[in-house]
């Protein structure tokens, strides 16, 4: 009885996720700063930001819908934290798993975007409404290639469970090579989900102030920022679990270190892309996703179908 509570609240649940996501944000910001030839923030910066926001006044605009405005950050945080339990992190087994959890994880990672939309829409500020509509428009662009690439990997493993996928890919070493195309597409489209720089159109601070979060302040903003950070960690863990199924037999401690290294490598890829590219326009982003990534993701599905026919007769 105590063990699940410990798992959910402390390790690898909320508390671990909290510090891990703050560390991930620090790593991302520091690396971004170093790539821009700056010194960058000190190590405690995300924690200081979080504490400061907790200590600030909550302002709820008069015209905003009080209940939706307050609930949305909590929803975002809950859904991304739940998704974490179904992803195999170190070792081949996730904390909880059932057949079909890969779909559940993908949808749990979509819920935050909907909360950004609803929170922004019910703020009733022009900037946040534009940001909300943009984040939903962007959702329809990147979601399809991202889902297709991850489901293509599941197709090859012939299961809808992430834990069984991890078991399959470690039982067949070398099979991850077939998913490299999918990995590249998933990594790029994940930036759209995280609203990081080439695809940070919904938050574009030079155009629409802060997008959906324009009216948020204090504790609610802190929860939203935390859920964005956790979403980064969870999304990247998902990619690491699906596309980098290496050394999963290493045991708990070595496995944990390998997992952290995988996450660090993927986050540094995110910061690298963030420093390399400028923001795209919304139409460019949608063109790119639908005309380039979606056909390539479809190609990945076809490749995996053919491989499946050829390899498992």
């Amino acid at each position, binding site marked *: 009885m105590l063990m699940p509570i410990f798992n959910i609240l402390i390790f690898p649940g909320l508390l671990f996720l909290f510090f891990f996501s703050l560390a991930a944000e620090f790593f991302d910001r520091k690396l971004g700063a170093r790539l821009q030839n700056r010194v960058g923030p000190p190590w405690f*910066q995300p924690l200081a930001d979080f504490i400061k926001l*907790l200590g600030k*006044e909550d302002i709820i605009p008069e015209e905003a819908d009080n209940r939706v405005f307050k609930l949305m950050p909590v929803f975002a945080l809950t859904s991304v934290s739940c998704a974490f339990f179904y992803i195999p992190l170190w070792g081949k087994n996730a904390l909880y798993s059932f057949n079909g959890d890969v779909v559940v994880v993908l949808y749990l990672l979509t819920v935050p975007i909907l909360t950004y939309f609803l929170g922004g829409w019910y703020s009733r500020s022009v900037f946040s409404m534009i940001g909300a509509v943009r984040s939903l428009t962007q959702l329809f662009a990147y979601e399809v290639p991202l889902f297709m690439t991850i489901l293509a990997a599941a197709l090859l493993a012939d299961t809808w469970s992430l834990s069984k996928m991890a078991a399959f890919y470690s039982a067949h070493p070398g099979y991850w090579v077939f998913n490299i195309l999918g990995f590249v597409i998933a990594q790029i489209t994940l930036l759209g989900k995280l609203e990081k720089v080439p695809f940070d159109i919904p938050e574009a601070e030079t155009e629409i102030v802060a997008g959906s979060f324009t009216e948020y302040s204090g504790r609610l903003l802190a929860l939203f920022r935390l859920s964005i950070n956790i979403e980064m960690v969870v999304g990247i863990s998902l990619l690491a679990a699906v596309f980098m199924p290496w050394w999963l037999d290493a045991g708990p401690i070595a496995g944990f270190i390998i997992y952290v290294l995988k996450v660090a490598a993927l986050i540094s890829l995110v910061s690298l892309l963030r420093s390399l590219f400028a923001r795209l326009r919304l139409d460019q982003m949608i063109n790119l996703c639908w005309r380039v990534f979606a056909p390539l993701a479809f190609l990945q599905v076809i490749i995996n179908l053919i491989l499946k026919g050829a390899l498992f007769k």
Partner: protein
Amino acid sequence: MGVITKIVNWGRRKSPWVLHFNTGACNACDIEIIAGLTPTYDLERFGVLLKGTPRHADVLLCSGPVTRQIESRLKMIYEQMPEPKFVVAVGTCACTGGVFKGCYNVKAGINTVIPVSAYIPGCPASPKALIDGVTKLLNSLEESPKKK
């Protein structure tokens, strides 16, 4: 001072998010503020981030004398910021009105409209002076937490 107050104060000192607002400056101070955020001076080492919305900001950086047209907007932006909030007047004009003092279209310094926590003189105030002023303001938090 309780432990929680200390921790929150630490957070406030380490993470001042600024909002830059031109209250009628000639643009020189604005360029210097932007220079402070560039890689050469890199204010992010002190946790300073430039924010676009007053709801996220802790520190309002005002540059220039308050013109009569911008007075009501300055008040509105100040009121939109969540507590605790600080106002920094950047440049001589923002401190006292400078050479524009007494003009028909200009009120004097920022402090004629909203309360100011720190004054950074200079025409224009250099990024070094800006960093110095902001860190002094934040260190003063440690001694007497501003409560309202």
